[in-house]
Structure formats: structure tokens, C-alpha cells
């Protein structure tokens, strides 16, 4: 590697709005620069590619000091949805797509999307539960094999 990144493999382990978006933006941005990119969804990160859940990803409004909001307020019913909706609206203005569209777009750029076998087993998830853009459910060893020669980013 002569100063230029040629390949990145990004591990998505969180299922919150703010846990998923940065990984997607980095993967998409890598492809836009001609960098090879793979995404490995593990643990709650699997929600980003779950047919049932990827359209209902919420922001963490409790235990998130970055929101500068009283914890008790963030715990009120409806507040996570409201804050997420507000953020989605703001992001749309900056041309950042909703998660399902973003996942589809990233797959179209030629990036590889994979589910983590251990997590899928743990949660009882099969390939049918995941969106069609997920190429395969793979082991950690297979992930490392795929990531060989590039950078690994854990989010």
C-alpha cells in the first residue's frame, strides 16, 4: 500500500440510526473514490439489512449525550421516533438517502454486503430474513479472508 487505500472492510455492529449511517456513508464514499468496499453486518448491525427492521431504525434518545437532551425526556414514548423523523428530514435535504434506499444504492455500487454467521445463529436469522442485497452469511474467518490486503473499520 503506497499511501493510497485500495480496499476497506467495514464491520457494522450497532443497530441504532447513528450507529448504522456512518458505516453506510463510509462504504458509499469509498466506492465513489474507486475503493473496493465490503460491509459485514454483525450483532444489532444486522437490523440495517433485516427486511422486517431496516425501515424502522431509530436514533438512541436515551444515553446519547450528543443529543443534549434530558435523559427522562428522551425516554418518553414517541420521542425516539420523533427525533429520528426530524433527523431523516434534515438528512434528506443533504441528499442522504433513507437506510433501505442507501443499502440498495451501496450494493449497486458494487460493494459486497454480508451477514455474520454467529450473530444470525444467535438471533435465529436466516438469509430469507435479510434483504436481497446481502450476498451471503459468512463466518468471521471468511470475513478476514475477504478483508485481506485492505483496511478494516469497526463501527
Amino acid at each position, binding site marked *: 500500500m503506497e499511501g493510497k487505500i485500495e480496499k476497506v472492510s467495514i464491520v457494522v455492529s450497532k443497530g441504532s440510526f447513528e450507529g448504522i449511517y456512518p458505516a453506510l*456513508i463510509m462504504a*458509499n*464514499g469509498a*466506492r*465513489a*473514490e*474507486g475503493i473496493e468496499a465490503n460491509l459485514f453486518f454483525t450483532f444489532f448491525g444486522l437490523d440495517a439489512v433485516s427486511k422486517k427492521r431496516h425501515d424502522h431504525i431509530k436514533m438512541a434518545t436515551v444515553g446519547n449525550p450528543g443529543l443534549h437532551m434530558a435523559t427522562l425526556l428522551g425516554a418518553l414514548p414517541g420521542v425516539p421516533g420523533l427525533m429520528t423523523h426530524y433527523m431523516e428530514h434534515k438528512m434528506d435535504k*443533504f*441528499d*442522504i*438517502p433513507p437506510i433501505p434506499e442507501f443499502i440498495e*444504492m451501496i450494493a*449497486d*455500487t*458494487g460493494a459486497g454486503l454480508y451477514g455474520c454467521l454467529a450473530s444470525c445463529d444467535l438471533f435465529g436469522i436466516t438469509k430469507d430474513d435479510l434483504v436481497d442485497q446481502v450476498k451471503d452469511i459468512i463466518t468471521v474467518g471468511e470475513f478476514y479472508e475477504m478483508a485481506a490486503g485492505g483496511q478494516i473499520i469497526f463501527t
Partner: protein
Amino acid sequence: MPTATYAGHEVLVSDDGFFTDPGQWTEDMAPQIAKGEGIDHLTEQHWQVIKFMRHEYEDKGTGPTVRVLGKTSGVSIKELYQLFPKGPAKVAAKVAGIPKPRGCI
């Protein structure tokens, strides 16, 4: 500022090779710029994207993002990456003689 010579004309470019004055660009320069980016032959679809880039730049003052390209240029994101494997928004901007787009999406 660095210069480059395309189709016999000297033009001003940025350090990474993007036109700084899109007015200096002419269509006959595109094949040579494309070759430098690993694209040996510009197809009709390449031209569709190049012309769209020019149009968007004249309209908005900046090149479009890949998302916008995919939605409005008539060429899908999948095809865009086949046409410009090193990154559609960036490479097409270079070939179309407009400054490098700075969007993150």
C-alpha cells in the same frame, strides 16, 4: 497552477487534474482525458453522463453526486459504476472538464 494539454490546447487544472476553468473544455478533449483514467473508448452512454455533468454544473455550479446521477441522468447506479469503475461522480467530472465534486454521498 498546473496545466495539461488536451487536443493541442493548454488548459488550467487543479493538483489532481480537474479543470479549474470549465470554459476551456471542448468535447474533443474528452477521449484523451478518459484514457488517462483508464477508459479506452467513450460510448454513447459515457457521453450521456458527460453531457449531464456539464449541464448540472452550468445549472448549479457544482457536479452532481452519484445519487443524483443515478436518479436523473437516465443511467442507473449499477451502470454508472460499470462505465466509470474508479468512481462515477469523480471520474465523469474530470472527463467533462468540471471541478471535482466535494459531496460525501
